[in-house]
């Protein structure tokens, strides 16, 4: 019988083929029998075994690449016997056994290898090696028992030989193949689970090497006491299962899941579990490969205890098992886990009555798919449990192999101790391991000198060396010291004493340095405030820090809106200061006094002041001087913001070292180009900067630079960047990567880049500096094992004294150090791990972690992979969250108008009132002036009566209540009306009947308008506006205008509600003008209408719109909004209709509308925007008193018939499906580098390196990554681009000047975008005529000019419009 391989066999076959020379699937056992064995009988017995066991006679071969198996009818076998009895040294035998078990089996000949070894007269070893393709755990037991039976029978212990009553293996194979061919996997339980199955992507921070098969087997003996505890544990009611084995299996899988979670951080976990799969009794005694590996899946919850997880695992395991028994697991699933849990429950009995021990000989190789295999053995006779771990060298090096068993034991012990314990509570590391991670003998050695003393010593030692250059002056140490002394005396006179705070608001210039030194000399505390700070923020800082005085210079005084007696302009006081003595001033400076307070941006939106002591500062400076070899030859540029902690290095380090500072003053406005100037001047040899700074100079003039030392801080430093720097600079370049939050003083963990040693993506941040310690802890303050990611905590002399006036925040961030008594540690919020070299690696912010579809993702992880792409220079990844992702139940409605909180840019006050209602209060009275009364309406509509003998106006009649009311009232007023109805193909039958009745009853002429393009217009409208109404309205306007033109009817009356005016015509800006002129508003609306008809949409493409090209049209046909004149509430309206017209609400739309397609628009709008397109106009109806809030909400919340919606969508050809609307949060990768990269290639590159859920959806090229003022990547800016902006071809570019900033702000407000690039197109961003009204009104208001509405369409980018404004302003100036 020639057969193909079963699915399970096939995966072994493939594994073996991929590693042809590795004994991956040799399963060798040695049975040591304590008794004499008769060779002849043994051989006979073995022959019988072969004869009765078809699996042993199987051979495998390929034909045309397809593997087959076939059993030989007869296989005569002579057993090999080796006599070791003359030299029975055990080790030698075991070496021999291991060697023999590695022997490659030639499967085309024979699937097993066996030897009988004589160890001594009374000890024999039976060695039996079988290829996994024909055997499994149960089979080995069957083989052993069968062999034993035959041997016993042949030895004459029994009467004759019992026949073997088991089925043949090939019969099983055949039944499996038959079953498989009739099965489809499509709808199986597993196909739906596949998406959830994830391998462990890194253990202990190590990504498994592919194709590694070498693995070590590590034994874990639980010992007597622990085994007893486990035994009892398994009997607990919440633990026990059908059998003790099952309970143990559940416990072990729970334990493994926790272990996996703790060493990988991954929450979605899967373990493969081999299933013996001999379900049918027919094959209970058949030798062969029956195993199937089925996946066990779980997802860890943050709040899990051992108990809750165990309960879940129990249920999940039984559910998975149940399905595993019914559906074959596909190979896709079998390859989707890399941890295996194997329960070995086959013990071996005695052989021929002799005591026998068995050993599974480990070949040193496992399947390359598996990184970790855990074998749990049935408890030994003494009741002790034994676990074997096969650890793949592709992940686990020698050191880790020692640690893993301990970590598992830590967890097991915790579970046995307290099942209620939170799974994150127990520490994994042993005390011995902990000692290697935290030096228990750490002691702080206080620096003896302060920074100031160092400086003053230099002033004595090298008075004539240049200390400071800039602003056209050069100061020697002596001169600088004297100037600082003078200023100190001056300040002393101003009553500045020790520990008082002095804010320094300066440009980067020598005055600033002098001021810093003067303040230090007084023993006071300086607070640097850079020149570009907004006044509001400065005021806050001064108030918050309780600064006694603000020192500043004339150029900046305008920023300071504070009491003049707290203000000192040194430019003005120059002559006064120069009268002061040169001598040193005596102060009682204590090392615990504050040297400076630095304000950093806080998460609350208010900056927070970090208080740094002299000892912290001196410790850093003293260390840095030595470590970076800063000396009298060092020249630093001072070019970065003085408000940035990183800049303290350039401010003080040169002066304490006898070196020199060159200051680079920032521009008064616009981007700071100082760094370019630094390289242009080429006067410095040492520089401190951020990687983003570095990226800016990449292409600049560095080939002749003198820089030899670079200190980099503030951000993750990529190895590629460091390397390219080293090769680009002409001198050997030392690059120090310095890590340190402001709260731990400038730099506290540092590494020197070493291109030989540092091979990953980012340069490690290194090791702590003198007197500092760093710990990587988990959420329970446990030290995590080396390699595992945790949060970085810092401790030591460099810690800040906390935040100014924020005791709670200080307490939250500076917590008690659990490792050293009376010591604090700072919680950095940074993720770190310690790599194999013992260096700390920075892995991003804890809040850089995002959650996408349940997966926790480190954005920096994606970034560091992408920057390895050859032509990508820099990369920043953000998660852009979808607006609609706010769950509906979290949406609240304005308590006055009902506007939902997920309407873009809404802002509710504490009373739950929306910003539109609040703002309306301020122009309500003025808005009322826009509205008129019925008499005026009559006046307007009869004003051109003589022009047309038949009609005064067209009345747009949809058949709904509002338009019916309009028509009835117009007729009632005695007007001659032509009713026009747009048949969009979806007007309900009842609505049509309604229209017929109304027309008849009112006795008016009536025409239907229609177009064959309606469906295309709907689809376009859905794409453009996420609703159908916009397209429909425009069609109505177009077709009714055509008729009006033809029939020379001067007016078209709309039934738009007042709320809809605010959706389509009116904006808040129109009412800003104090002297409100409704004529002007009408004029603007008319202008907007002209633009509206020029918009490039489906209506313009598909209908004849040529008439709109002629401006005269707008005089010939005017639109009149009925409800502008008539004020009627919904209730009154309905009564009127009932009494006078006989209008009935159609019931066949299932809704309050008469249009069947209307709900498609609402449905799509809700899916894409999160709220109904009626929310906004209805909120206005409520605000204007035409609807109550309840009426509005009732209509908005009407039930939508999804089946019908989908049917119509299909009908009109709108092809979005639910998948398109699934939570559309997405990862977006921005990159700089080659703009013409193939996105497909980048994506493939990413897919090879990252799990699928981490591959960004969008890749967008930028010319430059936007930076914050401190030179860090501005992720907020990147996060706030919408999907439309991402699809634009234009890369994002930030505004470059004040006018562009103003325009950007206006565009953001009007277009409801969080970010607009200066090259983005207004129209492409959804700017339509109403937005043009708003934007233009705002621009005119700010610039105080009167730009026409259409300018914004002529010059549709911020860059163009801004240039136009500038030209206009220049021209005006010249006049």
């Amino acid at each position, binding site marked *: 019988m020639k057969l193909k391989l079963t699915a399970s066999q096939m995966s072994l076959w493939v594994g073996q083929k991929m590693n042809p020379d590795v004994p991956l699937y040799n399963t060798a056992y040695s049975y040591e029998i304590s008794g004499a064995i008769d060779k002849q009988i043994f051989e006979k017995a073995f022959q019988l075994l072969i004869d009765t066991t078809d699996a042993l006679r199987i051979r495998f071969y390929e034909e045309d690449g397809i593997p087959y198996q076939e059993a030989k009818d007869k296989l005569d076998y002579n057993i090999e016997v080796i006599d070791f009895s003359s030299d029975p040294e055990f080790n030698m035998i075991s070496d021999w056994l291991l060697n023999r078990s590695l022997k490659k089996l030639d499967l085309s000949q024979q699937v097993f290898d066996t030897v009988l070894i004589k160890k001594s007269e009374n000890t024999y070893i039976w060695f039996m090696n079988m290829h996994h393709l024909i055997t499994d755990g149960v089979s080995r037991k069957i083989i052993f028992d069968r062999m034993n039976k035959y041997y016993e029978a042949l030895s004459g212990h029994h009467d004759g030989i019992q026949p073997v009553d088991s089925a043949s293996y090939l019969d099983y194979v055949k039944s499996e193949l038959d079953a498989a061919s009739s099965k489809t996997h499509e709808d199986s339980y597993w196909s739906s689970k596949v998406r959830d199955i994830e391998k462990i992507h890194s253990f202990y921070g190590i990504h498994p090497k592919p194709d590694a098969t070498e693995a070590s087997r590590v034994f874990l003996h639980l010992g007597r006491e622990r085994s007893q505890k486990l035994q009892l544990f398994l009997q607990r009611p919440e633990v026990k299962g059908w*059998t003790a084995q099952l309970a143990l299996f559940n416990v072990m899988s729970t334990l493994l899941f926790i272990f996996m979670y703790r060493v990988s951080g991954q929450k979605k976990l899967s373990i493969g579990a081999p299933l013996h799969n001999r*379900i049918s*009794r027919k094959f*209970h005694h058949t030798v062969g490969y029956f195993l199937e590996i089925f996946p066990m899946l779980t997802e860890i919850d943050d709040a899990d205890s051992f108990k809750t997880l165990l309960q879940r695992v129990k249920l999940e395991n*039984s559910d998975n*098992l*149940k399905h595993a028994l019914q559906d074959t697991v596909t190979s896709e699933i079998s390859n989707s886990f890399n941890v295996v849990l194997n329960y070995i429950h086959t013990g071996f009995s005695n052989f021929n009555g002799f005591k026998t021990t068995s050993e599974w000989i480990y070949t040193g190789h496992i399947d390359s798919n598996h990184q970790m295999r855990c074998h749990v053995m049935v408890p030994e006779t003494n009741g002790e449990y034994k676990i074997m771990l096969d650890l793949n060298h592709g992940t686990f090096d020698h050191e880790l192999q020692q640690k893993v068993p301990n970590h598992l034991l830590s967890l097991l012990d915790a579970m046995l101790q307290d099942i209620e314990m939170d799974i994150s509570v127990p520490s994994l590391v042993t005390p011995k391991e902990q000692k290697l991670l935290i030096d228990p003998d750490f002691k702080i050695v206080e620096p003896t000198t302060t920074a100031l003393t160092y400086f003053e010593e230099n002033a004595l030692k090298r008075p004539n060396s240049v200390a400071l250059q800039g602003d056209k002056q050069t100061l020697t140490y002596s001169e600088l010291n004297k100037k600082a002394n003078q200023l100190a005396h001056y300040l002393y006179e101003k009553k500045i004493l020790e520990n008082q705070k002095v804010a320094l608001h300066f440009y980067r210039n020598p005055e600033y340095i002098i001021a810093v030194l003067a303040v230090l000399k007084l023993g006071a505390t300086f607070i640097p405030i850079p020149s570009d700070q907004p006044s509001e923020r400065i005021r806050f800082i001064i108030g918050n820090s309780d600064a006694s005085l603000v020192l500043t210079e004339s150029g900046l005084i305008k920023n300071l809106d504070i009491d003049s007696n707290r203000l000192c302009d040194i430019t003005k006081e120059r002559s006064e200061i120069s009268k002061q003595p040169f001598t040193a001033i005596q102060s009682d400076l204590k090392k615990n006094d504050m040297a400076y307070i630095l304000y950093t941006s806080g998460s609350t939106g208010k900056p927070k002041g970090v208080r740094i002591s002299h000892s912290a500062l001196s410790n850093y400076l003293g260390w840095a001087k030595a470590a970076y070899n800063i000396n009298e030859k060092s020249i630093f540029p001072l070019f970065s913001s003085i408000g940035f902690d990183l800049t303290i290095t350039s401010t003080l380090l040169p002066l304490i070292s006898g070196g020199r500072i060159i200051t680079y003053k920032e521009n008064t406005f616009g981007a700071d180009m100082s760094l370019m100037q630094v390289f242009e001047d080429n006067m410095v040899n040492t520089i401190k900067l951020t990687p983003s700074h570095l990226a800016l100079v990449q292409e600049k003039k560095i080939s002749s630079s003198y820089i030899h030392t670079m200190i980099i801080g503030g951000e993750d430093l990529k190895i590629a960047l460091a390397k390219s720097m080293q090769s680009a600079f002409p001198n050997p370049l030392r690059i120090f990567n310095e890590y340190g939050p402001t709260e731990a003083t400038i730099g506290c963990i540092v590494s020197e880049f070493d291109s030989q040693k540092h091979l990953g993506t980012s340069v490690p941040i290194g090791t702590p500096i003198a007197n500092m310690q760093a710990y990587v802890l988990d959420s329970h303050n446990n030290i995590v094992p080396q390699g595992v990611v945790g949060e970085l905590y810092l401790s030591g002399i460099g810690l800040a004294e906390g935040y100014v006036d924020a005791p709670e925040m200080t307490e939250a961030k500076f917590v008690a150090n659990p490792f050293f008594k009376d010591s604090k540690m700072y919680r950095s919020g940074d993720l770190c791990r310690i790599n194999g070299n013992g260096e700390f690696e920075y892995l991003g912010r804890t809040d850089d972690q995002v959650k996408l579809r349940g997966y926790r993702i480190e954005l920096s992880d994606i970034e560091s992979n992408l920057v390895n792409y050859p032509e990508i220079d820099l990369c920043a990844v953000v998660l852009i969250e979808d607006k609609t992702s706010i769950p509906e139940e979290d949406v609240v409605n304005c308590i006055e108008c009902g506007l939902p909180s997920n309407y873009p840019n809404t802002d509710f006050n504490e009373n739950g009132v929306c910003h539109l209602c609040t703002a309306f209060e301020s122009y309500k009275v003025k808005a009322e002036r826009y509205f008129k009364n019925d008499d005026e309406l009559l006046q307007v509509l009869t004003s051109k009566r003589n022009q047309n003998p038949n009609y005064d106006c067209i009345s747009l009649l949809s058949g709904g209540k509002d338009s019916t009311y309009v028509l009835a009232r117009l007729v009632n007023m005695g007007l001659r009306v032509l009713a026009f109805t747009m048949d969009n193909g979806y007007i309900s039958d009842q609505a049509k009947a309604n229209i017929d009745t109304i027309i008849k009853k009112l006795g008016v002429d009536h025409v239907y308008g229609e177009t064959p393009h309606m469906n295309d217009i709907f689809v376009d409208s859905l794409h453009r506006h996420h609703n159908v109404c916009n397209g429909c309205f425009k069609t109505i306007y177009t077709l009714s205008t055509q008729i009006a033109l033809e029939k020379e009817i001067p007016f078209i009356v709309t039934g738009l509600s007042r709320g809809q005016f605010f959706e389509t015509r009116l904006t808040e800006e129109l009412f800003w003008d104090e002297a409100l002129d409704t004529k002007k508003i009408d004029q603007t609306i008319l202008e907007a209408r002209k633009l509206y008809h020029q918009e490039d949409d489906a209506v313009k493409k598909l209908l004849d719109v040529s008439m709109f090209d002629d401006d005269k049209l707008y005089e010939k046909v005017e639109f009149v909004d009925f409800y502008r004149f008539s004020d009627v509430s919904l209730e009154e309206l309905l009564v009127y209709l009932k009494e006078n017209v006989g209008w009935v609400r159609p019931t066949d739309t299932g809704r309050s509308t008469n249009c069947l397609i209307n709900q498609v628009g609402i449905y799509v709008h809700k899916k894409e925007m999160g709220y109904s397109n009626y929310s906004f106009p209805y909120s206005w109806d409520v605000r204007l008193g035409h609807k109550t809030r309840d009426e509005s909400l009732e209509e908005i919340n009407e039930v939508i018939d999804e089946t019908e919606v989908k049917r119509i969508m299909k009908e009109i050809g709108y092809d979005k499906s639910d998948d398109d609307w699934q939570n559309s949060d997405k990862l977006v990768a921005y990159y700089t580098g080659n703009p013409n990269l193939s996105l497909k290639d980048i994506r493939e590159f990413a897919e090879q390196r990252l799990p699928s859920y981490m591959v960004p959806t969008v890749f967008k090229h930028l010319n430059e990554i936007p930076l914050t003022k401190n030179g860090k990547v501005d992720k907020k800016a990147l996060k706030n681009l919408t999907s439309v902006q991402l699809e634009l071809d234009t890369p994002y570019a930030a505004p470059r000047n004040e006018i562009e900033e103003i325009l950007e702000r206006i565009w953001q407000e009007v277009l409801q975008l969080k970010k607009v690039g200066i090259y983005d197109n207004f129209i492409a961003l959804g700017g339509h005529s109403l937005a043009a009204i708003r934007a233009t009104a705002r621009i005119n208001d700010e610039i105080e000019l009167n730009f026409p509405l259409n300018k914004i369409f002529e010059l549709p980018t911020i860059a163009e419009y801004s240039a136009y404004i500038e030209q206009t302003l220049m021209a005006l100036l010249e006049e």
Partner: protein
Amino acid sequence: MNEKIITYIKDELSIEFIESIDMDEDLLGNGIVDSLGMMKLVVFLENEFQVTINPEDMTVENFNSVRSISTYLSKPQI
């Protein structure tokens, strides 16, 4: 019902060939069925008697003998 269950266990599940199974025979304790077999039995019961057995109900108490299985199955399903 009992007969069907007993026949199924005898023909398909029992690890060793077995002549007869008593209503109160301890299926797990006496090693007639192992835990995998038990799961197979669950699948059989679900298909044969059109019931759904919650993982929570898969306890020794409910399944240790044919009698207890039948008692469990005759309880009203929630």
